C-alpha cells in the first residue's frame, strides 16, 4: 500500500502531463485553424483584433525600446572592449552587430520581453474568465473559447511581434551606434554597415519573429484556459504562461536556427 502511493502519484502526474500536452495541441490546432478561417473569410472581429494589436504593440513600445536599447549599448560596449584588447577590430563591430541583431538577438530578445508582458496579460485575462466561469458561459452561448479569445490575440501578436522586432532592432542598432561613437570613436559610417546582412538573415529573423508571435498567445491562452480555483490559480497560470512562453521562444529559436543552417549551411 505504502509503495503504491508514490507510484500512483507518479502515474497521475504522467497522465496529467499527457493530458496537458494534448490540450496544448488542441489549443494550437484550434488557433491556427481559426486564424486560417479568419484569413480566408476576412476577420470577423476586426475591432477586437485592433484592440489586441494596440495592447500588444503600442503598449509595449516603451518597454521594448528601453530593453533593446540598453542591450544594444551593452553588447556594443562589451564587444568593443574585447576587440580592442588584442588587435583593433572596431571597424567590424557595426557590421557584425547588425548581422547578429537581424538574425537572432533582435527577434529573440523582443519576443522574450513580449513573453513576459503579453504572455502574462493574456494568461491573467483568460485565467480570470476561467475561474469566474465566464469561459463556461461562453461555451453555453455557442462560442468556442479558443476561437473567440485566442485567435484575435494570435493574429494581433503575429503582426505586432514582427513590427516590434523591427522597431526593437532599429533602437538597438541606433543605441549601439551611439555607444560605439561616444565610447570608442567608431565612425557612424563605419558602424552602420549592412554589408554582412544577407537576405537569408532577414528571412530567418522575420520567420523567427512571426513564429514567436504565434507561440506566445497559444501558450499563454492554453495556460489561462487551464487555470483552476480562484485568484491563486490565476497567479499560477500567469507564472506558467511566462515560463512556457519563454521556453517556447528558446525552442523555436533553436529549431529555426537549425533549419536555417541545414538550408543555407555555412554560408549563413
Amino acid at each position, binding site marked *: 500500500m505504502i509503495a503504491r502511493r508514490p507510484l*500512483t502519484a507518479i502515474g*497521475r502526474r504522467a497522465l496529467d502531463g499527457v493530458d496537458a500536452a494534448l490540450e496544448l495541441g488542441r489549443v494550437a490546432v484550434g488557433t491556427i485553424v481559426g486564424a486560417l478561417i479568419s484569413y480566408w473569410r476576412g476577420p470577423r472581429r476586426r475591432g477586437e483584433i485592433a484592440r489586441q494589436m494596440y495592447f500588444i504593440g503600442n503598449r509595449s513600445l516603451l518597454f521594448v525600446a528601453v530593453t533593446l536599447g540598453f542591450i544594444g549599448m551593452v553588447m556594443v560596449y562589451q564587444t568593443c572592449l574585447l576587440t580592442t584588447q588584442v588587435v583593433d577590430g572596431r571597424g567590424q563591430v557595426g557590421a557584425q552587430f547588425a548581422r547578429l541583431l537581424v538574425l537572432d538577438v533582435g527577434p529573440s530578445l523582443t519576443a522574450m520581453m513580449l513573453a513576459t508582458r503579453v504572455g502574462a496579460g493574456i494568461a491573467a485575462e483568460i485565467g480570470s474568465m476561467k475561474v469566474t466561469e465566464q469561459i463556461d*458561459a461562453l461555451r453555453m*452561448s455557442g462560442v468556442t473559447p479558443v476561437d473567440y479569445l485566442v485567435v484575435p490575440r494570435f493574429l494581433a501578436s503575429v503582426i505586432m511581434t514582427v513590427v516590434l522586432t523591427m522597431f526593437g532592432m532599429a533602437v538597438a542598432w541606433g543605441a549601439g551606434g551611439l555607444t560605439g561613437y561616444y565610447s570608442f570613436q567608431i565612425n557612424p559610417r563605419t558602424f552602420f554597415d549592412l554589408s554582412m546582412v544577407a537576405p537569408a538573415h532577414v528571412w530567418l529573423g522575420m520567420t523567427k519573429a512571426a513564429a514567436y508571435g504565434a507561440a506566445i498567445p497559444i501558450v499563454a491562452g492554453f495556460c489561462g484556459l487551464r487555470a483552476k480555483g480562484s485568484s491563486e490559480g490565476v497567479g499560477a497560470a500567469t507564472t506558467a504562461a511566462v515560463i512556457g512562453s519563454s521556453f517556447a521562444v528558446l525552442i523555436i529559436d533553436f529549431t529555426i536556427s537549425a533549419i536555417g543552417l541545414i538550408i543555407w549551411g555555412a554560408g549563413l
Partner: protein
Amino acid sequence: MIELRGVHKAFAGRPVLVDLDLRCDRGEVLFIIGTSGVGKSVTIKHLVGLLRVDAGEIWLDGRRIDALPERAFHAIRRRVAMVFQGATLFDSMTLAENVALPLRKHGRMRAAAALADARRRLDEVGLADFVDRYPAELSDGMRKRGAIARALTLDPEVVLFDEPTTGLDPINARRVDRLIRELADRRGVTAIVVSHDLASIFAIADRIAFLYQGGVRACGTPAEIRGSDDPVVQQFIQGRASGPMETPGF
C-alpha cells in the same frame, strides 16, 4: 426527460460523485441541495457537457449524451440553458451585447437584430435603462437578472440554475424564485436548481434531491423531505451545526 445513471466523477483522484442516479421530468422544478462541495454544481454541469463523466450515463429525452463530442453539445446548449453562480456576464461587453451573444452564435442572428431582441428582453426584466452599461457598472442583482435574461434568450426547454439567489437581497431572491416558478408553470420550462436557500427550496420546488457523500441520499416532494426520518436530511434542512452529517473541512 433528464436522467443520470450511475454517474461517477473524481477530481485529482478525489471522488465527488459516486454512483449518482437522478431523474428530472419535463416541466418540473427540481432542487438539488446539499452541503458545500458535495457536487451539486458538478452534477448539473454534466448535463450540458461542461464536465464529462468518468463513468455512468446521462440521458436527455431518450438520447444518451454523455459521450457526445463537444460540437454535438452546441445543439443541446440551445435547448438547455444555464445560469451560473456568479452572474458571469462578459466584462468587455455591455449588458445588451451580453444578452445578444447567444442569439448571434446559437441563433445565427445578425448583430443589429440580436441587439434589438436583447434590448426587448432586458426591458421585460426591468433593465431597459441599463442596456448600454458594462457589468462592472451594475449591482449584483442587476447582473444576476441580466444573466437570467441571457440564459432565456433562446427560449430553452430546460434551465439549470446554479445558486440563483446567492448574494441577492431577500426581495430580489424571491423575485428570482417567482421567475423560476413562472417559467415552469407558464412556459413548461424544466428547471433544475442548485441551492442552499431553504426559503426558495420549500417555496417553489416540485421535488428535492438531497446529495450526500457523492450520491442522492433522499429525493421527494418538499413535504416528503420535510417529513423524512433520515437524521442527516433533518440536520441539513434544520440547519443544525451538530449531528450525524459528516462535512469535509469541519
